[in-house]
């Protein structure tokens, strides 16, 4: 835990403008030279209910949301009160203040809207404040906002108060407000901002929390994992997306749908996920780079077109934004328990390529890879990420996105090339030839002269006609499976796994996806304390990087596999491909709807190495290898 960091939590009700306010504030912190990381917690409802966004800002080293937080802006839930009867829905009215206190660090700062919240309703508030040495500043944010026109501006008042309390300039905040609004609304908001700032600035502060100082070398942009994926797809030449809304996949679908029409592309919201994936197959078959995606329950419906793409060797990129399951599970909470679902869904000896990026930059890199692999090898490739990564914003060097587009259709022939390609006696293109070097037989696109063939979801001859001939069957199955070996070789060159920490370390952590940053932060802390720990972040899920993982596990005395799943799915995958390593692997699991915090990982390693003790979070479990 660095001492010099601000972790600001803004809490209120869904629909109260928490999102937009927090995003502007995160940008303001980024523009002041800091590294930022956002974490969003929200219930599955449209308005009201307890929601918060946390922004962590420090001068470098920000890889996770951190442990707890040190500044609470409790706005109150304006939807918790029924205006006509002056009644309150349950205890929701005080939730923005009461629900957040457990994670507030000692010596932390609380600003709450006394216009909406009454601290006296919070059980044992005074005692807890004293016990934890919290610094409390009640402010009538609602009243202040109303004075200048509209109650909704209490967010702005809260930001102004925050700036005064942590000694932050208003310049960046003002600029961002000017970008987002104009006219009277802007004027009023600026008045509220300054008024709140001035009122607070006049007070004496008892706390010593200030905004850290930082300076970036390059201009920064604030992007989420979903932006990483969408931008990569666009750079890869994807101009067709089809989908059905489902949290959290909708984020990418929305970004793409807003951009594609102006890029001369097509976005289709269709009747269900079977159609969504089938459309992506149809568009890709017809010569347009395509993508579809969903979250767990919707992806279940895509199993069918996924198999069709495999059998017809149609390039296909699918996204799977995991949330807690089974069934509709917890729509707005992250989990990594769809791993086996995406790897094994679909009948037969089916196969696909799968990537699990860990942050917005990897989302970009690996989505680019997913497109290249899909079109070079005519195979479905899946990018699997989760609710956390989907909506988590981080700052990235602006130049990171300055990449050359790669709209190449891969193993697709032009008409000129088709002239020299193999045809049968009747002039039909032998689209699915057995005798290829890497398992890939180049394809044609409908409308091309000399390229006609039948693509069939049934087993087929080289020309595509349905066939049950045993020799042909074996040749086709083996050729399709051969692609995986070729892909593995290709991926080895790209080296997408992340080895982190001291190479000679004797204790290992293995992680995939959104938890990687948190693990890396834990490694840094442990090594700073004189331990010897390293981590491996696995990005290629299929075909699995067996060699790299084996080498890593064999290089340490013990390793913990960290994942958000109750059934140790990732550890199972490692053991399936690389063996059980004589029981040297254990698991750190969390599946309560919240991602790991670095301290939980540090604590787990401590227990694993020295025995005894309890993990800091009740819902976190450490499972040893024995008995597996």
């Amino acid at each position, binding site marked *: 835990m660095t001492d010099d960091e601000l972790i600001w939590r803004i809490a209120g009700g869904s629909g109260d403008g928490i999102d937009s306010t927090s995003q502007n504030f995160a940008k303001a912190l980024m523009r002041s030279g800091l590294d930022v990381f956002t974490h969003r917690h929200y219930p599955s409802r449209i308005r009201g209910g307890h929601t918060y966004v946390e922004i962590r800002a420090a001068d470098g080293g920000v890889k996770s949301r951190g442990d707890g937080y040190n500044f609470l802006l409790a706005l109150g839930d304006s939807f918790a009160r029924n205006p006509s009867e002056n009644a309150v829905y349950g205890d929701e009215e005080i939730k923005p203040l009461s629900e957040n206190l457990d994670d507030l660090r000692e010596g932390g700062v609380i600003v709450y809207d006394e216009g909406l919240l009454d601290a006296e309703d919070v059980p044992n508030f005074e005692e807890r404040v004293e016990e934890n040495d919290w610094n409390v500043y009640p402010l009538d944010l609602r009243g202040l906002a109303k004075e200048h026109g509209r109650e909704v501006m209490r967010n702005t008042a809260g930001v102004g108060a925050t700036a005064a309390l942590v000694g932050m300039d208003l310049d960046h905040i003002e600029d961002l407000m000017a970008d987002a609004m104009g006219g009277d609304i802007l004027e009023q908001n600026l008045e509220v901002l300054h008024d709140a700032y001035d009122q607070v600035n006049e007070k004496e502060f008892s706390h010593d929390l200030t905004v850290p100082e930082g300076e970036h070398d390059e*201009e920064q942009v604030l992007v989420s994992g979903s932006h990483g994926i969408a931008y990569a797809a666009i750079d890869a030449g994807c101009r067709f997306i089809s989908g059905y809304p489902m949290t959290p996949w909708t984020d990418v679908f929305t970004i793409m749908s807003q951009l594609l029409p102006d890029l001369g592309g097509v976005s289709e919201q269709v*009747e269900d996920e079977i159609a969504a994936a089938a459309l992506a197959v149809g568009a890709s078959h017809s010569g347009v*780079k395509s993508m579809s995606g969903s979250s767990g329950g919707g992806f279940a419906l895509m199993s069918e077109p996924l198999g069709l793409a495999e059998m017809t060797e149609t390039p296909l990129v699918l996204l799977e934004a995991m949330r807690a399951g089974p069934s509709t599970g917890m729509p707005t909470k992250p989990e990594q328990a769809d791993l086996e679902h995406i790897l094994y869904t679909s009948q037969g000896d089916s196969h696909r390529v799968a990537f699990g990026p860990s942050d917005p930059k990897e989302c970009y890199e690996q989505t680019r890879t997913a497109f290249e692999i899909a079109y070079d090898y005519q195979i479905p490739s899946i990018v699997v990420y989760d609710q956390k990564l989907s909506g988590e914003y981080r700052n990235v060097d602006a130049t990171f*996105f300055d990449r050359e587009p790669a709209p190449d259709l891969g193993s697709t022939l032009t008409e000129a090339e088709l002239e020299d390609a193999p045809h049968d006696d009747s002039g039909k293109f032998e689209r699915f030839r057995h005798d290829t070097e890497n398992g890939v037989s180049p394809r044609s696109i409908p409308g091309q002269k000399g390229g006609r063939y039948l693509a069939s979801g049934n087993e087929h001859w080289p020309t595509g006609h349905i066939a049950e001939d045993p020799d042909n069957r074996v040749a086709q199955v083996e050729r399709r499976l051969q692609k995986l070996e070729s892909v593995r070789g290709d991926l080895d060159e790209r080296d997408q796994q992340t080895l982190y920490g001291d190479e000679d370390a004797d204790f290992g952590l293995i992680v995939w996806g959104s938890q990687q940053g948190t693990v890396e932060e834990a490694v840094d802390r442990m090594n700073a304390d004189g331990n010897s720990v390293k981590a491996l972040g696995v990005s290629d899920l299929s075909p699995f990087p067996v060699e790299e993982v084996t080498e890593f596990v064999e290089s340490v005395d013990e390793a913990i596999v960290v994942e958000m799943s109750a059934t140790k799915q990732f550890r199972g995958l490692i053991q399936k491909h690389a063996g059980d390593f004589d029981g040297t692997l254990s698991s750190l699991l969390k599946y309560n709807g919240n991602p790991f915090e670095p301290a939980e990982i540090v604590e787990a390693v401590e227990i694993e190495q020295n025995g005894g003790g309890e993990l800091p979070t009740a819902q976190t479990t450490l499972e040893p290898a024995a008995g597996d």
Partner: protein
Amino acid sequence: MSKAFSAIGEERDVERDEFTPGLEPQPTWCPGCGDFGVLKALKGAMAELGKDPEEVLLCTGIGCSGKLNSYFESYGFHTIHGRSLPVSRAAKLANHDLEVVAAGGDGDGYGIGGNHFLHTARENHDMTYIVFNNEVFGLTKGQSSPTSPKGHKSKTQPKGNAKDPIRPLSLSLSAGASYIARTAAVNPNQAQEIIVEAIEHDGFSHIDFLTQCPTWNKDAKQYVPYVDVQDSDDYEFDVHDRQEASEMMYETESALYEGTVLTGRYYEDEDRRSYQQEKQHRGDMPEEPLAERYFDDDYEWERSYDFIDRHK
């Protein structure tokens, strides 16, 4: 730029034989099957229209009807049960110059693919959809399909099917298809004319194609005698009038199960924009075929760097 899809729009006389695969796979349809009639009519229609086999994409589902493109020479996509329509729709959006025809059976199209049927009709994609309607599941051996008559008995409906049959024409009309016809394999001339019209129509054309099943519906002549409603003085209605078409469809669909087979054109809306035109009208889809771009070396691809200002 050199044209990437030169088979499209090539004008020449096309012989119907060109649509017969050179190394013809032996059809696995039963002797006397109505599916032969669809194949014949489709080949005739394509030749009549002068379509090059390589500018046609024929997408099928699963079942006896799904094998249509095994015996028809063109680009083909033999998809999965009920999914020929979403695949076809996307092909049309990817390259709207392609001639896209989808085909499936009554179980495939009105059962498992029913939802896609509703939405493809609603969106009015410019394509033709031929549903082989033989009132039974053929390839899985005789179970009731959505168009089987009430009381139809089979191994899985031993007491007789308790469901009323679906009304495909009325369903299609209310869902939004802009060309709707019913024809029969026993009437090859009308069938070919209707397929030609359907392909020429600018919007979603739905053909309920009655195909007798000599194996599972024992009476192979189940659609004979038929009446052509356009040729008969007994049935006068305006195919451009939704209300009149609707009433005529209702009558036709009721009469079929009483042994009267009425065929012909039932509805055509020539004014409604196709989905592609509607999207283009809104600036939601490019004017030129999207797929062409991937073969154009001079095309300038926009990139993510063009959007990052908003994130600064």
